[in-house]
């Protein structure tokens, strides 16, 4: 079968499976819609969290980015996994014991303040909407490249399928589709990685392979990474494995970005809410272990894929005559993801670190998407990669849409505006809100505002600087007051948002020379987070302590046991 035939078959089969699962496990109550009735087993929730967390960015873009960054790619690898330790130790079991349905609800109840609740709702909606727009765009792009339809058509197909299972299925439907999507995406990521590892180094396990010796060619018997470092040096790039050398990010910036991504991960509402779906606090701890375990399979493979892709790409193209370039090069040239400009007119591709001499332009996204073709893998693997990219994007989009809908129906309508609303009306409003959100996300996916890429830094920065400190203080400090929490959140948000907006939209120059302490906008969330903590603690010490009801609430969530 052709590539296109395989892609249609595999994408069609997986979509049918998701729709079937969503229909079978559809939600009938608000508890089912928001938290899947709290009956999800720890291991299933771990898998669902994995799919919920790993987005189009993790699946399609991350390995490619690492491929160009070398050591510095660590910011994503540690940043997007280390946060689970914080989540497991500081938040998940306690939020589960708190019970109820949403993250803003904890903020509102713990600080006895509608203002704090509304600030938290606005942050939750903003962070989630930013993210979901990126996912819908990812869906459109995968459709356009692999199924040869227009991006718009791809986005509309994505909207219809997400609409069906998020709006009808609610959290129950989403959870079990995410379990299926995890399985699809991990196979789609691992199969090409294993095949390429076998091919280059003879090792089945990619995590071992990229530290092993090359088996064929002029460099046979030498370590892969050592060879890559040497090739990079010869072509004028910084060594792949080296840290603070020419053009790479500084230590302070790597530290700040990694910390911001870790803390941001632990503060993302769509991840936190997954821990409301398990049976009790104990299950929340084990579920965090399963989640990180399932995520680690992809995250420890990604740096291997990055190394293999870099070696293969340079080997296939550098010094090759343009006329004799491999077939995948010509087919991907049409997408604009890879391009050749013959600066010296010799007809030979020169890939160099020096921009004046470099003739090859490569976008990071190509590294995962074209990997199976570069390695000459069979057509069904290429179809599987398309299905995997879609699984990653759709599962994340669904989780985010649920946060948006519950923020509107539960935290705004039920808790603030219409307090005696019955269960059936709330469920109806939740579905309407989810429907609006998915359509709005589709529109943004079709007509992406120029700044979509830039606002991603916001999502993590704001989650780090707004939620994380007030959640941690709300659990670990009895003395933190509502005034402290509100002042802390506002300080964190204002500092982080204005720094990012200034450097992304207004500043003439954005480089280490002009940044505060050399910290880039991507890393400023960690500064906002620290300031949020300091202001919240400081203001709390001047304001009257929380009520005895709040003390009782905090003392209750500190003890595990059945909710």
């Amino acid at each position, binding site marked *: 079968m052709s590539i296109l035939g395989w892609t249609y078959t595999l994408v069609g089969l997986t979509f049918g499976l998701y729709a079937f699962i969503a229909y079978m496990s559809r939600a009938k109550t608000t508890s089912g819609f928001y938290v899947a009735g709290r009956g999800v087993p720890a291991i299933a929730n771990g898998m669902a969290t994995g799919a919920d967390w790993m987005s189009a960015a993790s699946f399609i873009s991350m390995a490619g980015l*690492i491929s160009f960054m070398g*050591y510095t*790619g*660590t910011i994503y*690898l*540690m940043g997007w*996994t*280390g946060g*689970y*330790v*914080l989540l*497991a*130790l*500081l938040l998940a*079991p306690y939020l589960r014991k708190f019970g109820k349905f949403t993250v803003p609800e904890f903020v509102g109840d713990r600080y006895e303040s509608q203002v704090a609740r509304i600030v938290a709702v606005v942050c939750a909606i903003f962070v989630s909407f930013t993210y979901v727009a990126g996912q819908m765009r990812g869906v459109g792009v995968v459709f356009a490249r692999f199924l040869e339809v227009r991006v718009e058509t791809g986005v509309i197909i994505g909207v219809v399928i997400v609409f069906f299972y998020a709006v009808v299925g609610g959290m129950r439907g989403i959870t079990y589709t995410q379990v299926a999507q995890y399985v699809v995406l991990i196979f789609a990521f691992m199969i090409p990685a294993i095949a390429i590892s076998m091919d280059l180094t003879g090792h089945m396990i990619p*995590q071992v392979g*990229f*530290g*092993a*010796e090359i088996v064929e060619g002029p460099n046979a018997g030498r*370590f*892969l*990474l*050592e060879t890559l470092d040497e090739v990079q040096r010869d072509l004028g790039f910084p060594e792949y*494995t*080296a*840290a*603070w050398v020419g053009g790479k990010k500084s*230590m302070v910036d*790597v*530290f700040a970005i*990694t*910390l911001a991504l*870790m803390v941001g991960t632990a503060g993302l509402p769509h991840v936190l809410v997954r821990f409301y779906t398990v049976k009790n606090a*104990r299950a929340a*701890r*084990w579920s*965090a*272990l399963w989640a*990180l*375990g399932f995520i*680690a399979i992809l*995250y*420890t493979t990604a*740096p291997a894929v990055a190394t293999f892709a870099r070696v293969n790409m340079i080997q296939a193209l550098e010094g090759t005559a343009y006329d004799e370039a491999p077939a995948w090069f010509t087919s991907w040239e049409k997408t604009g993801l890879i391009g050749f400009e013959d600066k010296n007119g010799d007809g030979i591709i020169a890939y160099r670190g020096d921009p004046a001499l470099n003739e090859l332009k490569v976008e990071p996204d190509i590294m995962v998407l074209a990997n199976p073709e570069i390695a000459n893998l069979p057509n069904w693997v290429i179809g599987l990669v398309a299905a995997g990219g879609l699984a990653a994007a759709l599962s994340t989009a669904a989780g985010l849409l649920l946060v948006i809908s519950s923020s509107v129906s539960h935290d705004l309508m039920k808790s603030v505006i219409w307090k005696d609303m019955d269960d059936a009306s709330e469920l109806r409003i939740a579905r309407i809100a989810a429907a609006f959100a998915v359509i709005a996300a589709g529109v943004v996916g079709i007509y992406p505002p120029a700044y979509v890429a830039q606002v991603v830094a916001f999502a993590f920065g704001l989650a780090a600087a707004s939620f994380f400190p007030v959640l941690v203080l709300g659990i670990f400090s009895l003395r933190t007051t509502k005034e402290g929490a509100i002042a802390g959140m506002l300080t964190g948000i204002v500092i982080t948002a204005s720094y990012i907006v200034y450097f992304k939209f207004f500043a003439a120059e954005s480089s280490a020379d002009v940044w505060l302490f050399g910290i880039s906008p991507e890393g400023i969330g960690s500064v906002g987070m620290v300031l949020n903590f300091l202001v919240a603690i400081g203001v709390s010490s001047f304001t009257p302590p929380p009520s005895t009801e709040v003390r009782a609430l905090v*003392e209750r969530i*500190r*003890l*595990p*046991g059945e909710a």
Partner: protein
Amino acid sequence: MTSERAASYWRANLRVMAILLTVWFFASFGLGIFWVEWLNQFSLGGFPLGFWFSQQGSIYIFVVLIFVYARWMDRIDAQFGVG
């Protein structure tokens, strides 16, 4: 449960957290970032050691930390009869 017993459960929990978060900090920021250059003079097979910690080892350590946490807390829960 008496409030004294609840307080000593909480102290036991905080001790577990403090130990594990210290390891978390050293494993990620220490081995993966602050000392990466120094560690790179050693190697683990074909990996410079600092590079390995930053792109592989730290992630394995995170998984182990959560495992130790879940096991340890199960034991403390049983000891205090709160599980």
